């Protein structure tokens, strides 16, 4: 092995060449061979690349843990492909056995590298710098000079100079100085890899003990953080119900502002929820906005969406009010054109269903019909069609934003489907005396996301340690320097200074010359010859 082959580059965790499999097929032998294969650098490299490739499908297919509705939508649109993709975990890529297996193998490989190297590094840090090789001139950087002082005095000064340059110094023999620095590089390298494990543990804690809930709250409405009141609640595998502290949040007002200037017309500029909250530690008023969450009892409340909730009153044949309240409509575009449904199961003689869209600032486009031209509610209109029959609401989870009209008949007037555009306060009468629907007014709703992740502080710590390890592992130079002072033929002392870098190091030569100059007792390099 040549001296220059020793260079251990950044992030190197490989202990040795894995070699070839053993000739005799003992189980222990195979095990050792497999372990060496797994912990080899080449395997780690391939596992890294495999992990990158396997992560790609998760950005191509909708993921269940990101957007459940998108997966359902995909299933509807690709009926043939869906079952096959489902079998391949295409919609749960990051929880799939093949993705998990890859990163677990990678971490196992990492452990197999890091643990032996930690022991090795621990010994190396406590060991004295090794004695100089017999022939210093064979090292990649080598400088000689002659001075008149005695070898002992020169060696003494060399040790002092190297200590001042923050080398660890040893004096293996009279007239010889060995110095070493840059162990921080390996320390950082090991810290980096170990910290990745910390992040993995933190993510595991989060996915076992954390929860994320989403709830839609209309202005002047409230929610209590219990399992039943969330529209969707995702809990960890080892989630404890007692972690769900039942705090409550009341939405008093939701302030919005949209761009009215010509540039980026209609772009959102402000979303601010004014809330009152009550938790186990007290109560108060607060403002919640994007990038400005509210923390209650260790859980945090975020504003992640908003829209309009028109209030409707529905009367049936008898004139009795069978539906009254705010119904959130789902925003569909940048101008907040929103779609939604009203399901009136209690209407007599048969349930009623209304399907429609809400236009916050309505206008009529000759080609596209009624559209919204501004996202704020300046000229609100609701356009509705009506259905009668079986709502198919058999208790199964069903979207509150769509109407299953397969067992319903559309109400018509004079042979054309009934359809009306209503301003606040206006009423649409249903044909045949079936009743009426009134668009009373419109409120805003906010989609609150409540999240609790007990692993997040540990994850942050891990991330900071990753960075703290990465910087020295890439930037610190590990090198050894040796000085040897021997009596020369003419009674003067010959000084040899040589350096060996264990990393890529384009400044080694400069540093060797500088140290040589300082050991000679001056900064004039003219007295040296190479």
């Amino acid at each position, binding site marked *: 092995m040549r001296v220059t082959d020793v260079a251990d580059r950044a992030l190197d965790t490989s202990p040795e060449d894995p070699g070839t499999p053993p000739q005799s097929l003992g189980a222990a032998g195979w095990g050792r061979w497999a372990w060496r294969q797994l912990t080899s650098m*080449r395997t780690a490299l391939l596992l890294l690349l495999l992990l*990158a490739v396997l992560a790609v499908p998760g950005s191509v297919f909708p993921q269940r843990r990101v957007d459940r509705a998108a997966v359902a939508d995909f299933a509807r649109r690709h009926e043939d492909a869906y079952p096959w993709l489902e079998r391949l975990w295409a919609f749960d890529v990051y929880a799939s056995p093949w993705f998990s297996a890859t990163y677990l193998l990678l971490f196992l490989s990492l452990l197999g590298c890091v643990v032996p190297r930690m022991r090795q590094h621990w010994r190396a840090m406590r060991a004295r710098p090794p004695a100089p090789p017999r022939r210093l001139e064979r090292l990649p950087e080598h400088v000689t000079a002659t001075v008149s002082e005695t070898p002992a005095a020169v060696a003494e000064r060399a040790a002092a100079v190297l200590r001042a340059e923050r080398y660890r110094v040893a004096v293996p023999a009279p007239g010889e100085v060995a110095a070493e620095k840059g162990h921080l590089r390996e320390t950082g390298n090991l810290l980096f890899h170990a910290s990745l494990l910390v992040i993995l543990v933190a993510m595991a804690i989060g996915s076992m003990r954390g929860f994320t809930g989403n709830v839609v709250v209309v202005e002047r409405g409230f929610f209590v953080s219990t399992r039943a009141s969330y529209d969707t609640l995702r809990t960890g595998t080892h989630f404890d119900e007692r972690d769900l502290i039942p705090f409550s949040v009341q939405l008093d007002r939701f302030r919005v502002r949209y761009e009215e200037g010509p540039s980026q017309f209609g772009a959102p500029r402000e979303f601010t929820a004014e809330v009152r909250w009550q938790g186990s530690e007290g109560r108060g008023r607060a403002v919640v906005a994007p990038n400005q969450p509210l923390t209650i009892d260790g859980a945090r409340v975020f504003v*992640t969406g908003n829209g309009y909730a028109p209030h409707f009153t529905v009367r049936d044949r008898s004139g009795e009010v069978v539906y009254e309240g705010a119904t959130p409509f789902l925003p569909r575009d940048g101008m907040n054109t929103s779609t939604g449904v009203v399901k009136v199961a209690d209407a007599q003689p048969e349930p009623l269903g209304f399907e429609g869209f809400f236009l916050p600032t309505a206008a009529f486009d000759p080609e596209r019909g009624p559209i919204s031209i501004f996202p704020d509610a300046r000229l609100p209109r609701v356009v509705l069609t009506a259905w009668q029959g079986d709502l198919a609401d058999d208790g199964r989870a069903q979207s509150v934003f769509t109407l299953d009209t397969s067992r319903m008949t559309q109400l018509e007037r004079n042979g054309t489907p009934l359809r009306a555009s209503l301003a606040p306060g206006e009423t649409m009468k249903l044909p045949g005396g079936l009743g009426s629907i009134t668009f009373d007014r419109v409120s805003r709703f906010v989609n609150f996301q409540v999240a609790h992740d007990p692993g997040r502080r540990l994850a942050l710590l891990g991330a900071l340690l990753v960075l703290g390890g990465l910087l020295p592992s890439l930037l610190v130079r590990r090198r050894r320097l040796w000085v040897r002072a021997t009596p020369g033929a003419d009674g003067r002392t010959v000084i040899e200074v040589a350096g060996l870098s264990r990393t890529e190091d384009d400044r080694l030569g400069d540093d060797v010359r500088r140290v040589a100059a300082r050991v000679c007792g001056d900064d004039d390099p003219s007295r040296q010859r190479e």
Partner: protein
Amino acid sequence: MGDLADISYGLVLSAMAVYACAMVAFAASVAFAPRRRVEVAATAGGSGGVASPAVEVRGGDPLEGSEGDGRGERATRIGISLTALAFLLHVAAVVTRALAVERAPWGNLYEFVLTMALAATAAYLLLLARGHRVAFLGVVTVPFVLLALGVCVAVLYVDAGDLVPALKSYWLVIHVAVAIVSSGALMAGAALSLLLLARDGGDDPGDVSAATDGNAVRRWIAQLPPAPVLDRVAHQVHAFAFPLWTFAVISGAIWAERAWGRYWGWDAKEVWAFITWVVYAAYLHAQSTAGWRGRRAAVLALIGFVCFLFNLLGVNFWFTSLHSYAGV
């Protein structure tokens, strides 16, 4: 506000004009690539792959020792001067844009790519200023920057405006600034890796004929520093960029945690940031794996840069992502 934005736009167009001139100069430097005398014995690593560091130290810098009538070198120097001038105009464009919008000038994709292109030029000039002999990188960097600015002007342009609420956070300044700085370094690393692959192919015995060839591009490639030198500089540049990219991902996670309540949610942008990070991690590991140094590592660096660019633009155009509001 509008006036400053107009001035900024005018400066972008002026910078593009000067970059275009610089590109012509760099093209001339390729066309005038000198015919080298045959003194290859000292530099060739023999193996055809990457020579060991011991050899490269003595290899010297062929840029210095090239035999020619000096026209190529003069063209390179003119190219660098023009690039520096374009850089100043580019800086002024970004600064006036920042003054026009009264915030960090990377609130939408137009501003982000504009600043990222600036970082690419800055990385090139900084490498030169630090004494690396990488003047030849202008041949790759300047067209790339010009292309990025062209995309800015033709596709991404939006008038100066306020931010959407989701972006109103000081993490925007930190997270995106670091991503931009690392992008400049990654661009330089990718250019070096690309040239390494071109150069490495020419390090075969055919090298001698390439150096005296009639084909200017082959001659130009043949007089680049030897592959191990390119590999070493590329490794240094990536070693600088990787911690920055790591920090960009971490600060993004911290911001995501403050904005959405989860630090990692496998959003399309996060997925591709992760893929980019893993590929560059693989690059750094390849640098210390026998048989992977040089060519294979360079291929990984280029894949990493493609992933980075895809994350920057492709994700916004092709996937639904929480990050899709960035001006598209």
